[in-house]
């Protein structure tokens, strides 16, 4: 039950933040959503078994597989967060702030992004 409430709160907060405009807020939203998924993964292995899954340990062992999943998911979401923050930094240089919505033009108008024939090999 407590796990369900935590997942619900994290998912709600994450969804709210992802719908914001700035990249930093979106990044924080994905952090929360990643935590929701991680909590869910851990809960999927059952929360009753508390003993670490070492060979030869006494008592009811926790399921090691969801823990491995959760670790992998944490590593991936850490990498994603770092990339998004880097992107926010980059967009501050390119656009002035981290708000990516185009206030005037159409964002998918390729005319705004002419192809440089001599692009590359600077």
């Amino acid at each position, binding site marked *: 039950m407590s796990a369900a409430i935590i997942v619900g709160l994290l998912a709600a907060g994450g969804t709210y933040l992802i719908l914001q405009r700035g990249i930093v807020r979106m990044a924080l939203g994905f952090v929360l959503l990643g935590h929701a998924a991680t909590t869910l993964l851990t809960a999927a292995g059952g929360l009753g078994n508390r003993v670490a899954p070492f060979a030869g340990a006494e008592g009811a062992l926790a399921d090691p*597989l969801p823990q491995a*999943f959760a670790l992998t998911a944490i590593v991936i979401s850490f990498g994603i967060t770092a990339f998004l923050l880097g992107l926010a930094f980059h967009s501050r240089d*390119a656009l002035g702030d981290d708000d990516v919505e185009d206030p005037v033009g159409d*964002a998918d108008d390729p005319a705004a992004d002419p*192809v*440089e024939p001599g692009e590359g090999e600077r």
Partner: protein
Amino acid sequence: MNALLAAPFAVPLTGAALGILLRHHRSVQRVVTATSLLLVLAAAVTLVAATGDGEVVATRVGDWPAGLAIVLAADGLTALLLVITSAMAAISVAFARTRGEDHHELFHPLVLTLVTGVFLALTTADLFNLFVAFEVMLIASYVLLTLRGGAAPLRAGVIYITINLLASAVFLIGVALLYGQVGTVNLAELHGLVTTDPNAQVGAGLVMVAVAVKASVVPLHAWLPRAYVHAGPAVTALFSGLLTKVGVYALFRLYSVVFAGDAALQPLFLVVAGVTMVVGVLGAVGRGDMRGILAFHMVSQVGYLILPLGIWTTAAVTAGLVYLLQYIAVKGALFLAAGAVETLTGTGQLKQLGGMARTRPLLATGFMLAALALAGIPPTSGFVGKFLLVLAAFEADHLLLGATAVVVSLFTLLSMIKIWNGVFWGDTTAAVADERRHIEGLPVPAGGATDTPDGEPTATPPASAPRVRAIGLIAPSLAIGITALLVGLGANALVELVTPAADALIDPSRYLEVVMRP
């Protein structure tokens, strides 16, 4: 044989690491990338030979006991897709090298990371591992898309990244729910559980939705045309050949193995396939640039690719696989031709182009052959795929869907004619007439551009380097176009090659057996 299964992801991953270490030596990086991709291609061809008769190859990574180990498996579909994707990746990288798009020191490592994810997704028989493969592939694609910098690619990149991250989160949540319910993520062990256990359907359904986003199925498609046009031309070709197609592959695999071809889902697939075809092709009408039109057609073609899921007969799946295999190459050729036009003239806007059939007849030929194959005009390879697909739809009494597929083909042809009229026919425009200046302006490693500040060429074109450039830009699309024609003429061989793979999808019992006891 089993070690071969690790090669498709281990080789490019090693190459990516080498590429990062050797980031100041562009020529060494190029050799590493080319070697990695050709090794994977060789391994894939061997796998095709090994799986040709419906056999399935599988291995447990690290020799862990069954149940703990991640299982890699290849059946006919996997092997054939490995061949075509590794070949297309190699061609795209060669094109990027010709354009000078690989000037960034991380370009080659990123491409190798991308294909690592693609090949792992194709070979894995484990749902969580599929998630990891998607992430590896997508993270590399995020960086490749935003590598060029600039405001427009950044805006497009953020849309692409947000949608795909959200889809990944949904995928992960789906995996967690599924594991919590049934206690396994092995595809073979999941077989049939989903149809009997309504709670497991929730998790598996979330996974399918997430994969549908990555395959860009309507109504989850809007990110694709916005994002792809802003990547470099070679990167667009690479993405078009690999990313959405892996999503389509995953839909096939999950539907075949996890959902066990559940007939209850077929009406849903039929509706989605029809809507995807129509929405994509209509979206292309509003665009006035080559890659914008092609990107919307990519959405439309996904409809054809998932149509077999709604019919699920051997005839339909065979047709779908024939179509998928040739389509990956043909679509890549079209994007490469568009990239060549943009590189030569400096623009992809139809209004500013014209008359290139006179100045670049070979490029025009390559584009035309690929465009005819995309629209499905005989005697190209696209005709074979579409004809068999429509035939299968009619045979299964899906008359409306079959008719839709034919009508959408006509609209596709219309779009291709629009590009053809805009770019290759008509009067030669200023951008095309100035082409020689642009190609001289292309940075040549040893030598300089000859432009004066007035923009007038001062001397005759420096002889060989630009000509080599032009050949390198035009040859890939021409070669694929001619191949599409030849495949269309000798289609029987391809159909016979694909039929065992289609049978194995309809009846995955051999796949299940091998994956359970590798």
